[in-house]
């Protein structure tokens, strides 16, 4: 059984609208799991439910086989790293880190040993007598991490811990965090709105939207095979069009063009109309006299923008506006008639909302 088992969790702050709507999530021991989503999607709320700061309206939270739903925060033994770090301003780095151990009535010698050990891990041994205000952002971040880790928590909870750091440090710290997590083998839940940050370190990613988990998969899987339109949009798919199922592997666009799709997976047999999607860089942009005929949509260039690596075109097509990234080798101009080739192995069928 999974280490963490969230079942049908409902949370509402005002008693009317639900922040979390029957949220389900399972996390295996030792995994690094991220909650990813736009602000207001409920990811921090989920973390705070697990930490114990928020009471659920319904549902249960099972941790390692026991019911934690109503367990007091201080009995949970979870390490928390806050977005603001939340270091104790009146205590030195050493005392900050030692706080959790003192609450556990650990002996003085053991505290000294553990704290010094963990400060070495986060590379802060020289700073143990400093106060938080005498540290840089990155150092504070590491103190917060050390403080959460020194209690040997059953679970490490990270609430956007990198968002207050500058870009360079953020990159370095996420590698640090991942390293420490691997070394200690600690199950970790990481909340972030930064897609790249989350994909780079996670074993599993839960993409959240409006209080539910839309997709829970490995980062690779989410990147290559989003299941819902929301997830697809969130990770950079920009073209969406409706497709009507004709027979297995063959779909019709609204304008009646048949599109072949390699992937067998369609989500429901009842369903006839689906949403298809494709990444801008996966569309092949061809001149109108090209002899490619399969999976081709006609259109004309509306806008061309330069995005560094290549050109991005907004193309007006028979199935609506499509965004296409195309190499610099051949440049098209506004009004040019073009063909959009949608490779059959790149078009994805999304789950409809009702499922």
């Amino acid at each position, binding site marked *: 059984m999974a280490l963490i088992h969230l079942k049908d969790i409902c949370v509402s702050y005002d008693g009317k609208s639900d922040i979390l709507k029957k949220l389900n999530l399972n996390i295996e021991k030792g995994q690094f799991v991220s909650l990813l989503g736009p602000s207001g999607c409920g990811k921090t709320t989920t973390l705070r439910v697990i*930490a*114990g*700061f928020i009471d659920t309206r319904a549902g249960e939270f099972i941790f390692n086989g026991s019911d934690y739903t109503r367990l007091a*925060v*201080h*009995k*949970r*033994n*979870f*390490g*928390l790293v*806050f977005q*603001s770090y*939340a*270091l*104790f*301003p*009146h205590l030195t780095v050493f005392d900050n880190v030692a*706080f*959790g151990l003192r*609450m*556990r009535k650990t002996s003085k010698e053991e505290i000294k040993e553990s704290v010094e050990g963990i400060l070495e891990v986060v590379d802060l041994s020289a700073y143990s007598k400093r106060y938080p205000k005498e540290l840089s952002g990155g150092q504070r971040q590491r103190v917060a991490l050390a*403080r*959460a880790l020194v*209690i040997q928590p059953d679970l490490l909870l990270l609430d956007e811990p990198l968002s207050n750091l500058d870009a360079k440090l953020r990159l370095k710290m996420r590698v640090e965090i991942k390293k420490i997590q691997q070394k200690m083998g600690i199950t970790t839940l990481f909340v972030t709105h930064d897609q790249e940050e989350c994909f780079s370190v996670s074993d599993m990613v839960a993409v959240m939207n409006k209080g539910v988990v839309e997709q829970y998969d490995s980062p690779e899987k989410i990147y290559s095979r989003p299941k819902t339109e929301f997830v697809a949009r969130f990770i950079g798919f920009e073209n969406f069009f409706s497709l009507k199922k004709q027979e297995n592997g063959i779909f019709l666009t609204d304008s009646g063009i048949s599109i072949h799709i390699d992937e067998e997976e369609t989500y429901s047999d009842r369903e006839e109309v689906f949403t298809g999607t494709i990444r801008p860089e996966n569309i092949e942009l061809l001149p109108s006299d090209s002899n490619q005929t399969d999976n081709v949509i006609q259109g004309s260039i509306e806008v061309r923008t330069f995005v560094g690596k290549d050109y991005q075109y907004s193309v007006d097509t028979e199935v609506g506006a499509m965004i296409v990234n195309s190499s610099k080798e051949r440049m098209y101009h506004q009004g040019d008639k073009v063909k959009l080739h949608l490779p059959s192995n790149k078009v994805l069928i999304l789950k409809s909302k009702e499922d």
Partner: protein
Amino acid sequence: MKNNKILVLVVILVYVFLCGPLLIIGATAFNSGNIMSFPPKGFSFRWFAMVFQSETFMTTLGISFQVAVLATLIALIIGIPAAYALSRKNYRGKNIVQNIFISPIIVPGVVLGFAFFRFLIIKLQFGVFLSLLIGHVIIVIPYIIRVIGSSLDNLDFSIEEAAVSLGATKLRAFFLIVLPNITSGVIAAFMLAFINSFNNVPASLFLTGPGVSTLPISMMSYVEYNYDPAISALSVILMAMTVLIMFIIEKTLGLSHFTK
């Protein structure tokens, strides 16, 4: 330019009206004669000596001190949890609770004093000292709640959550983490409440009685029958004391705590 001159004049006038009486009191305190006259006739410290020898002034000074210290401590014990609840929790009717706690500042002191008198002394038959103490606790609570409340509002709530997540109970988290970080607010609140209780006249007027009186009240009754510079001397002592307290606060915490 013309506007500016008028403004300067107004400011000067305000200062004259504010400080003038105090300066005159200060000067009369050093009279060597028996009458509170200005400009002072002669120079002596005899009225200061007289104040310290006066049994009435010394007893009531003691009572004022006791009441101020006790009332402030009790108000802190009530006010800190109240300020915490007002700052941290969200519940229905929070505004009403807040307004009730602050209301002793809004209600005129005389009205408050009369209410205390009717309720504590006549109805409940409490002793004079106890009534005085209860009255002062109620009078100073708003200051405690305001000052400590602003300290709490400026404190990052997540440090308390961090403490709890590290295994501290809520109570331990409060004493080990929250309280040490609002010490300056607590000290400021103490000073402010102390001064307010010590200087209070309107409510004390109703609550003092035979044998139990506060210094401001005994000063008032003294002035009714005597017109010697002893009162001036005492006023100078009190002013000096207040200035000293304010100076200590300013040096240690900054007066900004009162204006937040």
